């Protein structure tokens, strides 16, 4: 029994964080939203070079052969920086669903995307390969028209199925993607909390930092509590990725990140409500991720079915 990250896992998170921080990820996010994808693609290459694309892919297919624990470590860091690109789709869903050469190309760092839990494929215009799930089957896809997301750094596209592609268990792939999205929400929530704490220490009103008022403190303490209890669910689901554990993780990480977004915006006041201020990138990402890979209400419904079906 040792329920904490190992030193290697913490080191992996730290080196990924350093590499992403150095690449000015929020600028890449903003450029991506404007259709300027070069900075985001350069960042993607760096992230792929650190092995993120192949974490869930066995070594014989060119991957790293790591576990879902390393995967959630990586996605928490991606979430902290609002990294653009179809990462959940490539490194979680397709890394679990694809087989053979298609799988190897994801392991090699090729960005691919898929429309599975929503009608749209994120970032299909820049992806090297685009897929769609219809029924229980994975297909290659033709990209249709653009649909705008509440998070403009997620470029959504309609897709039409082409040819059928052999795949592994798609339900499991869907769960691994939901787990990655949960980890990304956790990272985004942590980022908003950290930025909000910094802001309320500096912003002075009525002659004192607003962070010294209990009305502010208690709201931020609630965010700390919610995130601290989301993390063990995310890590627990990574250790044992059952549908029940994954739905619990997606719900609590979504709730905690949503609380972080609401409180983070509230304590920033009007400056937080501007597009120019970087807080907006994280708040909008949280909103979008609470729709991707199963809404909280869909996961609660599944959890209820699983719980009440058990004897």
């Amino acid at each position, binding site marked *: 029994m040792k*329920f904490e990250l190992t030193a290697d896992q913490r080191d992996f998170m730290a080196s990924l964080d350093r590499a992403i921080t150095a690449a000015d990820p929020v600028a890449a996010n903003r450029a991506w939203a404007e259709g300027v994808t070069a900075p985001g693609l350069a960042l993607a290459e760096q992230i792929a070079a650190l092995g993120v694309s192949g974490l869930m892919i066995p070594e014989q297919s060119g991957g790293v052969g790591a576990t879902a624990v390393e995967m959630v470590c990586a996605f928490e860091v991606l979430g902290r920086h609002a990294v653009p690109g179809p990462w959940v789709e490539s490194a979680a869903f397709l890394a679990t669903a694809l087989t053979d050469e298609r799988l190897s190309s994801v392991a090699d760092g090729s960005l691919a995307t898929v429309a599975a839990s929503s009608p749209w494929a994120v970032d299909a215009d820049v992806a090297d390969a685009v897929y769609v799930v219809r029924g229980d089957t994975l297909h290659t896809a033709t990209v249709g028209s653009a649909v705008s997301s509440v998070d403009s750094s997620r470029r959504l596209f309609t897709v039409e199925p082409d040819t059928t592609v052999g795949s592994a268990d798609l339900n499991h792939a869907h769960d691994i993607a939901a787990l990655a999205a949960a980890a990304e929400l956790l990272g985004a929530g942590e980022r908003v909390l950290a930025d909000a704490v910094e802001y309320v220490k500096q912003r002075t009103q009525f002659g004192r930092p607003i*962070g010294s008022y209990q009305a502010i403190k208690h709201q*931020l303490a609630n965010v700390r509590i919610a995130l601290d209890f989301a993390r063990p669910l995310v890590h*627990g689901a990574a250790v044992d990725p059952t549908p029940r554990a994954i739905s619990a993780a997606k719900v609590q990480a979504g709730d905690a990140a949503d609380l972080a977004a609401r409180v983070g915006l509230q304590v920033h006041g009007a400056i937080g409500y501007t597009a120019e201020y970087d807080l907006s990138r994280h708040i909008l990402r949280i909103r979008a991720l609470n729709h991707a890979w199963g809404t909280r209400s869909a996961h609660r419904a599944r959890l209820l079915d699983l719980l*009440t079906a058990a004897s």
Partner: protein
Amino acid sequence: MNLDLSPEQIAFRDEARAWLAAHVPTDPLPSMDTADGFAAHQAWERTLAEARWSVVSWPAEFGGRDASLIEWVIFEEEYYRAGAPGRVSQNGIFLLAPIVFDHGTTDQQRRWLPSMATGETIWAQAWSEPEAGSDLASLRATATRVEGGWRLNGQKTWSSRAAFAHRGFGLFRSDPNAERHHGLTYFCFDLAAERVTVRPIPQLDGEPGFAELFLDDVFVPDEDVLGAPGDGWRVAMSTAGNERGLSLRSPGRFCAAADRLVDLYRQAPDPALSHDVVDAWLRAEAYRLYTWNTVTTLAGGGDVGANGSVNKVWWSELDVALHETALELLGPVGESTSPWSDGYLFSLSGPIYAGTNEIQRNIIAERILGLPREPKGAGR
């Protein structure tokens, strides 16, 4: 990162599970806050102690099994799973004993621990005073130096278990010139002593789960001072941390209740409450995993520090929400007294005792998030 138990830990778990299955009373005991229930809970403590299950983490010489931290938690897990009685000895074995091990003399350990382990002596805590609740450091009860010891004067209140307990422990101001956290001394005293008046206070459920204590020149010998005179605050804060930090209770403490809630829903599903049922279950599961993470930290020699406050807010609010949902599911009959209504009334005390949740949120904001302290108010 794993949640696997070793073969030795599994053997320990199986032994505990088998013993509990054979010995846990089939009918719930009467409330420990009644005279009959108190005696029945004391008898249960004796049964536990005879099989050396009452204080598994203590050294064998005091009635324990020298169990490791993880084994202790495994035992607690099994204890909750088995639906075993609440621990009437809790204030002693979980709150006072760690202090006695850390700060007590060898003589104090020999005098107090064995009868605490068997449940023969039940201890009550004496922290709060009428004017010292959340602001505990403003306490006024005094200790005056006399030949061979001290004389205690003043009033303590909300003293859990004191209606039927044998001894009390708490802080008294031993240096009248010192302020707040300074000049306090930690005393253990006899509740049956002359000049101690115990006035039981019925709680929300009508039973006297706590009491007021009036101390009128009560003599306490030097050998019943815990830690150094004047060092009481520091000594006591390790108790507060134990109470709030989880006292390392069962990771599954709320899982059994959440499972019963799911059962209740299955028998009488009310879709309007499905969201609350699912959330109670997943919050209990989050508590379970969070606790294993804490156990890992502590077993590795780490310190949870102010994270005990994070934990306390979570479990106390979860407990209220879980029981509220159950009562709602019961519909009109939820009004009648039942184990669910008992659990609900008990849960309502959670956000108050062991440091109110408002105090915990201040601690989280100031010590974990690093936010500036509130400017001191008048009178501080």
